[in-house]
C-alpha cells in the first residue's frame, strides 16, 4: 500500500470524493425532506363526509363506528346538525345574526376524518372514493384541488430529483475518476518500472484499486461526517426560517443510508482507479 508515499494526490482524491458525496447526499436528503414535508401537508388534509339531512343521530353514529373500524388510522368525529350550526355561528361572529331568519337548520350532519399518520395525496383520494360509496353519504370534501396541486408538486419533485441526482452522481464520478487519474499519473514512473520488471497487469492494478477503494471509503466517511455536522449544528439555527414547514420530518441519515453512502464511495473509488490505471496499462 503506497497511499502514504504520495500523500498529496491521495488527500486530494479523498477530499474530492468527500465533497462530491457530501453534495450528493445533501441533495438526496433535501429531496427526502421536501417529500416528507409534502406528505405532512397531505396528512393535514382532513376529509369531511356530508351525510343526508334525513340521517338520524343513531344512523350517523353507527356509520362513524363503521368508518372507525374499517379505517383505524383515521380519527373520526361526528358533527351533528346542531353542532354544525353552532360552529357556523361561531365562525360568522358578528354576522351570525343573519342565521336568525332561517326557519330551519339547513346544515347536514357530517363525519370529520383526520388521518393519524401521514397519507400521500393519492391515498387521500382513494380513501375519499371509498367513503363516497357508504350509505347516507351525500358528498365527500377533501380539498381536491389542494391535493391535486400537492401531488403534482410531489411528482415534479420526484422527476426533478431523479434527473438531478443522476447528473450529480455522474459529475461526481467524472471528477473522482479524474482526481484519481491525477494521483495515478503522479506515480506513472512506478507503474512503468513495475511493468518493466515483469509485473502482471493484475499485480500493477491491485494496489491502485485498493487505494482507490480506501480513498473512496475515507471520502464517504468524510461526507458522512459533514452531513451529520450540518444536520446537527447548522440546520437547527436555520430551522426558524422554515417555520412554515413545522411538522415535517427533519432530514437524517438512517444506518442503511450511511452504509449505502460508504458503499457508493468505495465503489466510486474502485471504479475511478480502474479507469485511471487502465489508461496507463494500455500505454
Amino acid at each position, binding site marked *: 500500500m503506497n497511499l502514504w508515499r504520495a500523500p498529496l494526490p491521495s488527500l486530494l482524491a479523498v477530499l474530492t470524493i468527500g465533497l462530491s458525496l457530501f453534495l450528493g447526499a445533501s441533495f438526496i436528503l433535501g429531496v427526502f425532506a421536501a417529500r416528507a414535508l409534502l406528505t405532512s401537508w397531505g396528512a393535514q388534509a382532513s376529509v369531511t363526509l356530508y351525510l343526508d339531512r334525513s340521517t338520524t343521530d343513531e344512523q350517523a353514529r353507527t356509520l362513524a363506528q363503521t368508518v372507525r373500524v374499517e379505517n383505524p388510522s383515521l380519527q373520526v368525529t361526528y358533527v351533528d346538525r346542531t353542532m354544525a350550526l353552532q360552529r357556523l355561528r361561531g365562525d360568522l361572529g358578528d354576522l351570525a345574526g343573519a342565521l336568525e331568519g332561517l326557519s330551519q337548520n339547513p346544515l347536514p350532519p357530517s363525519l370529520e376524518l383526520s388521518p393519524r399518520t401521514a397519507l400521500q395525496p393519492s391515498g387521500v383520494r382513494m380513501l375519499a372514493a371509498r367513503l363516497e360509496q357508504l350509505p347516507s353519504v351525500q358528498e365527500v370534501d377533501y380539498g381536491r384541488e389542494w391535493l391535486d396541486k400537492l401531488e403534482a408538486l410531489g411528482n415534479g419533485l420526484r422527476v426533478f430529483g431523479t434527473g438531478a441526482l443522476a447528473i450529480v452522481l455522474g459529475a461526481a464520478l467524472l471528477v473522482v475518476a479524474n482526481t484519481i487519474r491525477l494521483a495515478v499519473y503522479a506515480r506513472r*514512473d512506478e507503474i512503468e*518500472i*513495475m*511493468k*518493466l*520488471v*515483469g*509485473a*502482471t497487469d493484475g499485480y500493477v492494478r491491485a494496489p491502485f484499486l485498493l487505494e482507490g477503494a480506501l480513498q473512496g471509503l475515507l471520502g464517504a466517511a468524510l461526507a458522512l461526517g459533514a452531513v451529520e455536522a450540518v444536520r446537527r449544528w447548522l440546520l437547527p439555527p436555520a430551522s426558524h426560517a422554515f417555520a412554515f414547514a413545522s411538522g415535517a420530518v427533519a432530514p437524517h441519515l438512517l444506518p442503511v443510508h450511511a452504509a449505502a453512502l460508504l458503499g457508493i464511495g468505495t465503489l466510486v473509488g474502485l471504479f475511478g482507479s480502474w479507469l485511471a490505471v487502465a489508461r496507463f496499462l494500455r500505454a
Partner: protein
Amino acid sequence: MIQLFHVKKAYPGDAPVLDDITLRVEKGEFVWLTGPSGAGKSTLLKLLFCAESPTSGQILIGGRNIGRIGQGSIPYLRRNIGVVFQDFKLLDNRTILENVGYALEVLGASDGEIRERSLKRLAQVGLDHRATSLPRRLSGGEQQRVAIARALVNEPTILLADEPTGNLDPGLTDSILKLLFDANARGTTVVVATHDRTLLSRYRKRTVALDKGKLVSDA
C-alpha cells in the same frame, strides 16, 4: 537466444525507424549495438523487451516468437530480461534496497528472500553499505549500479542496456561496464546500446551497427 527476422518498425507518416533487420545473438554472447542518434538502437531494445511491437517481421526470444504470445504472457517474458536505462529509472521515494527488491517483489518472493538476494546484488555492485539510502543521495554512477543490481537480481538470461554510461563521467564508465562484463561472464546474454565509439575500440566485442534504421555492419 535472440533472433530477429526481417523486422521492421514504422510509425504512421514517418520513415521506418527499423527496416529489414535480421540478427541472431547466441546465448551468453556480449553484443554492442551502435550507431548515431536516431539510428534505431533504443527502438530495437524496446522491441526485445516488448515495450513496442514490430510492424512486420518476427522476433524470437529463447525460441519463443514474441509476436505470437498473448499480452498476458509479456510480464513473464520480461522476468527473464533485465533492462538498464541511461536515466536509471529508480523510484525516488524508495530506498536502494527496496528499488533492487522491487523486481523480486513482483515475482512474489518472501520478504526474507527479497532482502537477502537484494543485499547480495548490492554487494556485487559495491553498494550494500548504502542499502537504506534514497536514490537522490547517490551519485549518477552509484544510481546506475543500483539499476544494474535491480536488472540482475532475479538472474535474467538476457540483460539489455540502453546507453548505460551515457549520463556518467568517463571515469565511472569502466566500473559500470565491468558489472555488465561480469554478468556476461556468469552466462547472461548482454546487449548494450551505445553511440560512444571509444567504448567499442577499448572493449572489442561483437558490434552490430545501425544507421537510419538499417543494419549496416555486424562484426
